[in-house]
């Protein structure tokens, strides 16, 4: 086989590996050098055909009181529902936007949200999330922020058991965090 054809082969066969490596760099770096935090959650057991048995994590830190939001974030939240469904400046305020939740450890070792900012903090433990502005109108003085840790994969047919054990109380999520990105390590009943 001539050299250009060989090079083409190497490139084509490398592409899948590059994608797999690309997917793994951030999680591996987080697991290796991230800080470990503990969060409260309520696990729910659905099923994913492609990825297997898992529990959905309904984290306590997803529901944030208004007063913990920075002034800049509060100003972006809508006061009322838009009048029409046409594109307008009003509707812009209904789109999800990126925020950073700064976490603080309580006495019981569980982390909670101390403050939420629009800009990435320089130091400390924080999580990048997406704030859902419409939730400001659904509940009194709280908003919902979605983070990248929303599920935990479990061995086959054990999800329901974990959900049952947690129904009496909550479950604890242990995750490694680095630079706003988190990887779940473990979910156990409290």
């Amino acid at each position, binding site marked *: 086989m001539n050299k250009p054809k060989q090079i*083409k*082969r190497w*490139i*084509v*066969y490398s*592409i*899948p*590996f590059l*994608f*797999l490596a690309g*997917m*793994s760099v951030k*999680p591996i770096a987080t*697991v290796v050098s991230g800080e470990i935090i503990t969060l409260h959650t309520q696990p729910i057991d659905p099923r*994913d055909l*492609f*990825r*297997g048995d*898992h529990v959905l994590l309904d984290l306590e830190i997803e529901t944030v009181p208004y007063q913990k939001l920075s002034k800049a974030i509060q100003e972006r939240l809508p006061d009322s529902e838009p009048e029409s*469904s*046409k*594109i307008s400046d009003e509707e812009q305020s209904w789109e999800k936007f990126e925020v950073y939740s700064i976490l603080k450890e309580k006495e019981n070792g569980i982390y909670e949200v101390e403050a939420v900012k629009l800009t990435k903090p320089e130091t400390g433990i924080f999580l990048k999330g997406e704030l859902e502005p419409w939730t400001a109108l659904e509940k009194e003085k709280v908003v919902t922020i979605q*983070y*990248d*840790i*929303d*599920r*935990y*994969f479990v*061995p086959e047919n054990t999800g329901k058991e974990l959900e049952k054990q947690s129904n009496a109380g909550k479950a604890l999520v242990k995750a490694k965090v680095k630079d706003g990105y988190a*990887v*779940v390590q473990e979910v156990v009943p409290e």
Partner: protein
Amino acid sequence: MEKRKIGKEQYQWQSKEIEHFIETGILKKEQGKEILGSYEIEQKQSLFLRFVLSFGAILLGLGVLSFIASNWAEMSNVWKYVLLLSSLAITFGVAWRIEIEHPKTSRALHYLGILIYGASIFLIGQMFHFSGENYQAFLIWALGSLGVGYLLKDKWILLFVIGLLISYSIDFSVMTSTFPMPTLLLILPLVYINYEMKWSRLVTIATNLLALTLTYISVALLLEKTTHHSESFYWLFLAGFIFGLVLLLAPVPKHLELWIRLQANVILAVNGFVLTFEDVWGNEMAFIAFSLGYMLFVFILIKRGSLINILILSGLVLRFYVDISFDFMPKSLIFIVAGLVLLITGYFFEKKRRKGGGLHE
């Protein structure tokens, strides 16, 4: 000169034929010897041995998979990662190595490699508990497989890639209400690869379906963002109808014409049929104008010799007939008349076919 390898039966047949040509004076003895000398019998394993080896390989493969599956939960992430990447590397490596001597086995290993790649994407997602929906995984799977499809010029791999892209596009647009730009950007490379394959029929039809999917998605998203879409539903099917029209009239390579025109007629029929309902338009004048215009268009196509449009016309006639008559005619009479319409259609279809009409035109 390198000898050409052929099977034992073929060699014996060739030998008999050359003997006959020599006896009848068509070939000289030296020529016959030279021709036969340019062939050699391919050494093949016995069928029994091949079966035993294949069965053994399958059992070995199943055993390995079973071992991995039962120990997967106990393995550390490091070992899982090493296992996935090394399986992928070995599969593609062996596939490349044996490509010339065993082309069919090599091709099968390439397919296996693509499946291992897909499994790796999902398993790595599982290992690190990735959030989000599956559509991102489908896109990565498609992108990684496209190169292999291009390398081998394999239509099945390309069909698989197009299937993944259709799935990704629909999921992505439903989940995010955003247009799947990566898919649009991949249409051109797909067309280029198809061109290098001298326009495979299946890949062309699948690429057209992908383009149609993107058309529907863009119109649906536009409707969602701009108007009260329940009143503007017809735009979706109008876009599909125009797509079908373009496909019907666009110049295509001769060997593709039958299939592309057939696909175009099917797309026109599906979208056109939906557009003959007043509820879709929400406007009586618009629906009547379109229905009459479409029937006229179908008549013109039939006049040009299109057989499939005879079926489409009978479908339209039945549809309007049932619509108009259902409330006031006895049901048995409805069925009798409907049956007669179909019989008449069949008669005209057969008559046209004998005159030399084209199914696709």
